[in-house]
């Protein structure tokens, strides 16, 4: 889920007419002072991170003058906070608060409805408050087709002991908050505290919104870089991976680094799962075998070979991994030879220097394993393919043996070389790349294995040369599934005339940086 910072959440609330304290964000000392001078003292300064409980950990300060603002801005900006480095602080007018409330909206999976949780006493830990003061906390399930009306919200607030004119302001504020939650595709929205000021206003003093990953595409204004659950800001490699996923809807590709810089300790491996449950089961197997995972990856939902290729190339951009493990549920519905070809292209291109165990059980598993064993047998390290009757534990154990045989040697990242076209090739544009066919070489080829390999009937022989059989636009739209079969067939059984270029933006530069570090 995409978490928003407090200031982003408050900007949304403001749009919906919810009152927030006057203020702004600063990235430098000077900006902080300027804001404080403009809004007037006293002010509150807050670090902007995704975690709650900032107050207790010293991430919030109150100031009466510019000198104090400068001191805290200096202290906060650049502060290491868990996996965050603070680069933004929020400076707001400090208000006089009469009463602190809590308002939160979450989604109840049991009823498939949003729920409003409201408390007339603020503070952290709504569950504890509910236990200690059941008369101060009320809940309401919201009928999704009707939404939340102010009158309903007033009744919820009344049940927590709130009386008088302020009920009206609370009612309309809660209805506005719900509207913001719904229209911004939020998984949850919380204001803690929601304050009643001395002047009788209801103001969101803090706000925390989590946007549903799958709805994030409807809100480009939020600038969410990666709509995936991350406990911290995304790494450069994760951003490269997300770009691959974002631009190719076929199947899913998930990549998260468990360690930012993989240590050279002989225990970390590249992990490549398939399917949610199968990936977790496989992860357990490698952890039990004594490995640590450098990354968690999942390619599933029938991804094309090109996506698996890109995933493998990204995993192999992590130095110091000592092995590569791929395994899913073992009984996959997807055609496993696509994944097999993705691995073949990536592993050959990088000429990988670590052993790999790839468990490709499921549909067409025989063909998948045969592809691996035929085309990857001459790599520096062993690649073993397994099927559905080989358990994840057995496979993890195999990898352990292979890694030990290889002396737990750490992986060295190699340059990412894209194919450089000569300009004379016949070119087919595919959904995410290009197929280059050097017809001069095809003339020497007797077998023309590429045409037989193309199970989707995308290419055919015209004047003895492989060319598009279907409409150019159809090929680009996805009729050519980027199964990579023609390239592999040509490389091993033909003249090596076919090169498929599947760009991965940013990977070349990323690897260059890694290689430079490796060298030093």
């Amino acid at each position: 889920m995409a978490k928003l910072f407090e200031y982003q959440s408050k900007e949304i609330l403001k749009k919906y007419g919810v009152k927030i304290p006057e203020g702004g964000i600063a990235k430098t000392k000077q900006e902080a002072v300027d804001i404080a001078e403009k809004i007037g003292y006293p002010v509150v300064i807050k670090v902007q991170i995704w975690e709650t409980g900032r107050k207790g950990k010293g991430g919030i300060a109150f100031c009466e003058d510019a000198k104090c603002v400068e001191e805290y801005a200096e202290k906060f900006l650049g502060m290491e906070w868990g996996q965050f480095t603070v680069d933004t602080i929020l400076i707001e007018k400090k208000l006089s608060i009469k009463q602190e409330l809590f308002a939160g909206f979450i989604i109840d999976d049991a009823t498939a409805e949003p729920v409003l949780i409201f408390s007339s006493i603020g503070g952290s830990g709504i569950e504890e408050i509910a236990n200690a003061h059941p008369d101060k906390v009320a809940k309401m399930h919201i009928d999704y087709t009707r939404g939340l009306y102010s009158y309903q919200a007033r009744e919820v607030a009344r049940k927590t002991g709130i009386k008088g004119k302020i009920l009206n302001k609370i009612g309309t504020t809660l209805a506005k908050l719900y509207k913001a939650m719904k229209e911004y595709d939020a998984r949850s929205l919380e204001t803690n505290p929601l304050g009643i000021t001395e002047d009788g206003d209801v103001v969101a003093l803090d706000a925390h919104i989590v946007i549903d990953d799958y709805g994030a595409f409807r809100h480009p204004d939020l600038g969410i870089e990666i709509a995936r659950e991350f406990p911290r800001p995304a790494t450069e490699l994760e951003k490269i991976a997300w770009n691959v996923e974002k631009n190719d809807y076929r199947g899913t590709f998930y990549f998260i680094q468990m360690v930012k810089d993989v240590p050279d300790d002989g225990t970390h491996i590249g992990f490549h799962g398939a399917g949610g449950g199968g990936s977790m089961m496989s992860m357990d197997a490698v952890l039990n075998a004594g490995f640590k995972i450098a990354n968690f990856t999942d390619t599933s939902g029938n991804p094309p070979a090109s996506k698996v290729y890109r995933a493998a190339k990204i995993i192999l951009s992590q130095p110091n991994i000592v092995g590569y493990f791929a395994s899913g549920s073992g009984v996959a519905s997807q055609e496993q030879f696509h994944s097999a070809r993705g691995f073949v292209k990536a592993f050959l291109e990088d000429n990988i220097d670590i052993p790999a165990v790839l468990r490709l059980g499921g549909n067409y598993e025989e063909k998948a394993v045969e592809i691996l064993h035929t085309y990857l047998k001459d790599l520096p390290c062993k690649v073993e393919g397994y099927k559905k009757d080989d358990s994840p534990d057995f496979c993890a154990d195999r990898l352990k043996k292979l890694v030990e045989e290889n002396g737990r040697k750490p992986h060295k990242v190699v340059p990412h070389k894209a194919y450089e076209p000569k300009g004379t090739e016949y070119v087919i544009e595919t959904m995410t790349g290009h197929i280059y066919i050097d017809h001069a070489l095809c003339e020497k080829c007797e077998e023309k294995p590429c045409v037989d390999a193309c199970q989707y009937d995308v290419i055919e022989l015209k004047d003895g040369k492989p060319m598009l059989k279907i409409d150019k636009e159809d090929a680009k739209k996805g009729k050519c599934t980027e199964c990579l079969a023609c390239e592999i067939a040509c490389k091993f059984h033909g003249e090596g005339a076919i090169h498929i270029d599947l760009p991965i933006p940013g990977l070349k530069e990323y690897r260059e940086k890694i290689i430079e570090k490796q060298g030093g």
Partner: protein
Amino acid sequence: MSILIDENTRVLVQGITGREGRTRTRLMKEYGTKVIAGVTPGKGGQDVEGVPVFDTVFEAWEKMGPFDASCIFVPAPLVKEAALEAIEAGIKLLLLVPDRVPIHDVLEIHAYAKQKGARFIGPNTLGVLSPQKAVLGMIGGRAQSAREWFKPGPVGVSSRSGGITSAISYYISKAGLGESTIVHVGGDAVVGMPHPEIMKLFEKDPQTEVIAMFGEIGTTQEERVAELIKKGELTKPLVAFIGGKAAQKGTRFSHAGAIVEGNRGSWESKVNALREAGAIVVDKITDIPEAVKRVLGK
């Protein structure tokens, strides 16, 4: 008997002309599912695998209806419209296959389905399969594999992971047993028919003697199954495995539903609730067939 689908279920496919729609229509037909018609707006009059294509669900219903179930293969952002159309046209069981359907769309579909007395499985589901009868969705991938992997028998299978749905069922068949119906409830945080709903159907199904369930961290589904057992609404023996023991709090590993938020849905909470209620919780997925056999006295 079986639950949700059998050889008589009349099926509509929405998004039939797309990549997945086409491939899975072939699988369903070859396996024996009665695929009656398909819908892709703007492509009416075409034919996919011998199945006529219409522009709207209403038109398909007029000319080829009624339908018992609709299988939806449209891109995720369009799922809401497709589902609402199917429900409004009168279809009572929907299968939402796509991944990445916005959660608020699911809430809206849920509210409308409830109002119209319709049910839906998914989103993010591989589907439902009743061995030797019919398949809805893409379980098995192709008919030949589906026939090899799944056999008719007394075990009801319900799972939150697609691949594991197939894996558990395959292990059960390999152990000489078989399945009544195999259900992948979907991997998302909010699904139309979560585990408890499926349990209630298995409870009523005479073919089902024992239930195998794959649960996962996140959501309250497994805790609610434990409640059903405690209340006496689920009396058939349940063998369960809960995935995600090693997962970190707040980090999503794969399924959108597999994330622990606050104290809800942790691995411990699920395992404890199920064990207290009297379910058998095994430590490894591969232990499921043995546990099932013991329950059946085999």
